[in-house]
């Protein structure tokens, strides 16, 4: 049975290397992954921050589309998207009056049959037991700080995934790939998310704290599974250097890119050459560049 794929706007835009690496890895791992037809934006932060029902309606359309295209399970790699759809699905189930209202006003029907999963859940469920036989590269001595950010695990009552204060799912996957996941204190501290343009100084401030802690813990690399976290931590290191003086040069890598390297794909095939902070050098000893 095919798993639906909801890339979201960021993966089609600035974070297209996340989409690129997910697809390349999946070609090797062989899961039937099919993009949802005609999906719309989940509304990210701006919808729920200004109009609750706008957020519900936008996501109800996506859930309704997924259901009518007969997918039971959908991978949404961006945690803003996955959190939005999971939260709206739950709200529509618990508030049938709201579901009926939107159904009548907008003409969309939804029966709460869809399950949305994030990339960590997808890898855990569909890749983990086949990974050992497909891994071609043996990494050694690379220390990784797994950064979960906010919306993979919060709010815990709704997402019910991993631990909201000390998550470990990504750490275990990274360990299986052959890196050394670190114990560090900023796994779920906010990077500033959607404020990259409208309050850049806050993103620079928060990313400085995250990278400082990662560096202090001994990280050679930071692994992420969110396009906003990646953009903020990867692109703002020059802003951080200007503001705080620290030149981190700490590579930020998507989990999908890391898996791809382990499977023998090149950095260019995975889009790692598109990063602002060089993330190829740290793997030079192990992969074809």
């Amino acid at each position, binding site marked *: 049975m095919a798993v639906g794929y909801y890339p979201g*706007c960021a993966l*089609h*835009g*600035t*974070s*297209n*290397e996340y989409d690129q690496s997910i697809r390349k890895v999946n070609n090797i791992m062989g899961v039937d992954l099919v993009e949802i037809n*005609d*999906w*719309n*934006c989940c*509304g*990210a*932060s*701006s*919808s*729920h*921050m*200004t*109009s*609750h*029902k*706008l957020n519900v*309606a*936008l996501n109800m*359309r996506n859930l309704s589309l997924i259901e009518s295209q007969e997918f039971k399970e959908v991978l949404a790699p961006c945690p803003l998207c996955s959190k939005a759809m999971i939260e709206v699905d739950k709200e529509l189930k618990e508030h049938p009056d709201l579901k009926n209202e939107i159904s009548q*006003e*907008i*003409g*969309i029907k939804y029966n709460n049959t869809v399950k949305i999963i994030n990339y960590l859940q997808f890898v855990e469920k569909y890749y983990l037991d086949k990974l050992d036989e497909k891994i071609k590269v043996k990494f050694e001595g690379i220390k990784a700080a797994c950064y979960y950010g*906010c*919306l993979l695990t*919060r*709010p*815990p009552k709704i997402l019910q995934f991993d631990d*909201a204060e000390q998550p470990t799912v990504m750490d275990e996957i990274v360990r299986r790939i052959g890196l050394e996941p670190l114990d560090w204190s900023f796994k*779920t*501290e*906010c990077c*500033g*998310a*959607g*404020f990259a*343009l*409208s*309050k*850049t100084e*806050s993103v620079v*401030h*928060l990313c400085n704290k995250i990278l400082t802690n990662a560096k202090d813990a001994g990280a050679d690399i930071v692994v992420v599974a969110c396009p906003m976290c990646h953009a903020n931590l990867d*692109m703002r290191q020059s802003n951080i250097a200007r503001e705080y003086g620290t030149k981190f040069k700490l590579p930020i890598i998507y989990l999908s890119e890391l898996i791809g390297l382990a499977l023998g794909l090149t950095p260019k095939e995975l889009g790692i*050459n*598109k990063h*602002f902070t060089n993330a190829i050098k740290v793997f030079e000893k192990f992969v074809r560049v």
Partner: protein
Amino acid sequence: MTIQLDNAQLNFADEVSELAGFRMKDCYVCGKCTAGCPMDYLFDISIHRIMHLVQQGHKDLVMSAKSIWLCVSCETCSTRCPKECKPATVMDALREIAIKENRLPEEERQLLEFHKSFLNSVKRFGRVLEIDMIRDYKFRTFTFFNDIEFGPAMMLKGKLKILPHMIKDRKTIKKIFKKYGNLK
């Protein structure tokens, strides 16, 4: 000492409770939300104080706070609340009330302008075209030169999508925005 609160303000706690989906009176202002708030260093009124002010009906004071626009919805507060209150959802509700009543932020106005630019792109194409959103935002806020160094680099790296993908069912998106969109 007696503090007089007029009726409009007394209803404020109920109005917020209704929108946020929990009872404001459950909050006992312990401060755990503020302790974990990553944006507290920029807030004029901390989130635990906002919760208390809402309970007491100080609508004007809360509505004039720039904090509500600076909240980044990281959900740390709602996750850690010992009484299962939802301060992050309260912030959403306060923004929605502010927009409805045209109480726009005096400071940090660009945060609201960003939401307008973002949602305009969604309304137009069904998906966000970043370059369109950024252009709209820069024109609204006259910040043409901020981050200008990223533009050429992003184009060369193939990170900047130029042409929009217009979804086929834009009719439904327009209907959704007509009924539930509240920004001009």
